[in-house]
């Protein structure tokens, strides 16, 4: 219980509360602009947290993320352009609603469902995570090695029907992580005599390059202006009746979204599609789905936000990121010399419980601010975003440079951006690469320590937890291969 007390003390402080509110506002602003995603917002605005206390920094980032995640549904509903990949499922029913002049209603449903989904997710997170952390204290090197492999294969196998490309992306991440001192002998690998390279590649410039600058390059290629025309909004009113009818969908999708999010390597985009499909399957009148059924919007948005909280479970308890944003949050935590994992729960309870409490407050804040300002957020879509990208680039340079006051890190960011640009062009998902960079040292030292402990034999693979993970890994590959085969058969 003392963890909760420490958490409340850290969060119920004027500065932390202010940062939550500021984060939500900034997040909504950024998320509502077409082309600027929630992941990008968190990556590019990371430098604002360098000088803050860890808890305060997390409040700002969680606020930005929650706000941007919700606001991504605004362009999704109004102009069919999801402001964030995880709002893609929202488009399916949100946009048809908007074409029928019910955009206002869809937007209101989206706020309420996002907030409820987020809150349900956070409650589950707070209930589960401490248990998982306690269990994870028993994990040794073999468990961490297999967990890393499992996380990488599952994220790759779920990468929008491009498993091989996902696996390549993750493998490249592992290789990047090997530059610098090796975890056991401290031999400088792939350093070519350079002091900079021996120290290893910094994680934050890679993140900023991949998620901020690479996207900016794509935007410079296309140069889209603001959106001139806007559909009729209709009424924003949500009756009590309507809410009551949407309640079962929202509750079910929230729980489902959380469960999907808990799997290492899966986040909001997958969570919202799974929940959308299940809602459709079990709903009466499924014909309406895809034609502007409010239940579709509620399912997608609540699951989307709940799975974000779910993704924080492996992130906080094991140090294994659930998706690209939780990878960025790991980066933000390690900046302060802390390491996510089971020890974080005993070592920094104020941070862990502060995150639970703060994330709940983020969604409370989102509900109020989102509903109050709903007419205003819609206007944001008229901002000509192409003149914002140069500023995004400046923030990216600041974020890469400021961490160590080192221009080398800006160079790393630029290379990561060019790599990310080509990867996006070729249909390679970026998330596995980032997760690979985080998992590289965990996987390698796990593997080598496990071998040392077992005297050079592979018998550690046959102990219960690693064996289970091995079976799950093989199963996820087999499933993805099957799906790919049936997919190409039906499209042929």
């Amino acid at each position, binding site marked *: 219980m003392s963890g909760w007390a420490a958490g409340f003390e850290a969060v119920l402080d004027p500065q932390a509360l202010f940062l939550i509110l500021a984060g939500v506002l900034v997040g909504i602003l950024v998320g509502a602009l077409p082309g600027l995603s929630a992941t990008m917002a968190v990556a590019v605005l990371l430098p604002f947290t360098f000088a803050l206390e860890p808890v305060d920094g997390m409040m700002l980032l969680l606020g930005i993320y929650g706000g941007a995640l919700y606001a991504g549904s605004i362009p999704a509903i109004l102009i069919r352009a999801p402001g964030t990949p995880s709002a893609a499922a929202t488009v399916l029913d949100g946009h048809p609603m908007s074409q029928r002049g019910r955009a206002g209603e869809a937007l209101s449903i989206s706020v309420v469902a996002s907030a409820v989904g987020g809150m349900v997710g956070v409650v589950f997170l707070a209930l589960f995570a401490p248990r998982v952390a306690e269990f994870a204290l028993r994990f040794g090197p073999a468990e961490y090695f297999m967990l890393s492999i499992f996380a990488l294969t599952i994220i790759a196998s779920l990468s929008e029907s491009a498993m091989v490309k996902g*696996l*390549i992306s993750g493998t490249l991440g592992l290789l990047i992580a090997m530059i610098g001192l090796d975890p056991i002998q401290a031999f400088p690998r792939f350093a070519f005599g350079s002091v900079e390279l021996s120290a290893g590649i910094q994680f934050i410039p890679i993140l900023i390059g991949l998620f901020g600058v690479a996207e900016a390059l794509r935007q410079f290629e296309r140069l889209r202006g603001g959106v001139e025309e806007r559909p009729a909004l209709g009424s924003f009113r949500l009756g009590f009746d309507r809410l009551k009818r949407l309640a079962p969908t929202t509750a079910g999708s929230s729980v489902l979204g959380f469960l999907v999010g808990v799997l290492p390597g899966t986040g909001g985009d997958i969570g919202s599609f799974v929940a959308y499909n299940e809602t459709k399957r079990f709903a009466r009148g499924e014909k309406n789905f895809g034609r502007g059924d409010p239940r579709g919007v509620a399912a997608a948005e609540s699951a989307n936000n709940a799975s974000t909280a779910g993704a924080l479970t492996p992130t906080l308890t094991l140090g294994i990121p659930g998706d690209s944003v939780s990878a960025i949050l790991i980066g933000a935590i390690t900046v302060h010399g802390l390491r996510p994992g089971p020890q974080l729960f005993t070592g920094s309870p104020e941070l862990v419980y502060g995150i639970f409490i703060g994330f709940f407050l983020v969604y409370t804040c989102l509900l109020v601010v989102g509903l109050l300002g709903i007419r205003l957020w819609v206007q944001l879509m008229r901002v000509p975003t192409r003149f914002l990208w140069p500023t995004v680039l400046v923030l990216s340079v600041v974020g890469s440079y400021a961490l160590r006051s080192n221009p080398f890190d800006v160079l790393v960011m630029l290379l990561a951006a060019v790599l990310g640009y080509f990867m996006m062009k070729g249909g390679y998902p970026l998330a596995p690469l980032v997760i690979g960079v985080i998992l590289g040292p965990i996987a390698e030292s796990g593997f080598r320590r496990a071998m040392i402990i077992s005297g050079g034999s592979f018998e550690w693979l046959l102990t219960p937890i690693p064996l289970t993970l091995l079976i799950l890994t093989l199963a996820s590959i087999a499933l993805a291969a099957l799906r790919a085969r049936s997919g190409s058969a039906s499209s042929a």
Partner: protein
Amino acid sequence: MRAGVGDIVAAALLVAVAVAVVLLTLDFPPPGQPDDPGAATFPRMVAGALAVFALLLLVQGGRSEESLPRGRALLRVVGVVVLLAIYAAVLEALGFMLATMLFLVGALLLAGMRRPLMLALMPVGVSLTLFYVFSVLLRVSLPRGVLERFIF
């Protein structure tokens, strides 16, 4: 589904990376203690996996490739990368504000901004604001040049 040109180029590059990694590991020291697989083993395993995936790419072929930009679009993308490289190179010599202003003028021009007033005001406003917020409010250190010493 057949592999496209993009897949073939990518697969060749990835195999080359994998081979280079294995060659580089030949110089790594032997394990420091018995039963440790050593500094070279894990990179070799990962490089092997990369080569296998690269070959799978050839067999399976990819989907959802976007074509690379041409003409003006290509110039804009290359232009931004070059501007960023110059920005990084002169950041410490010129100081944050001056370097940022010059970069922003260039980047705004590339983005199609033609109004002289905005080309003057936006770079000044953005660089002043960011320097104030980071350096003064948040105490994140940014390189100081002539302008910073003069103003703050």
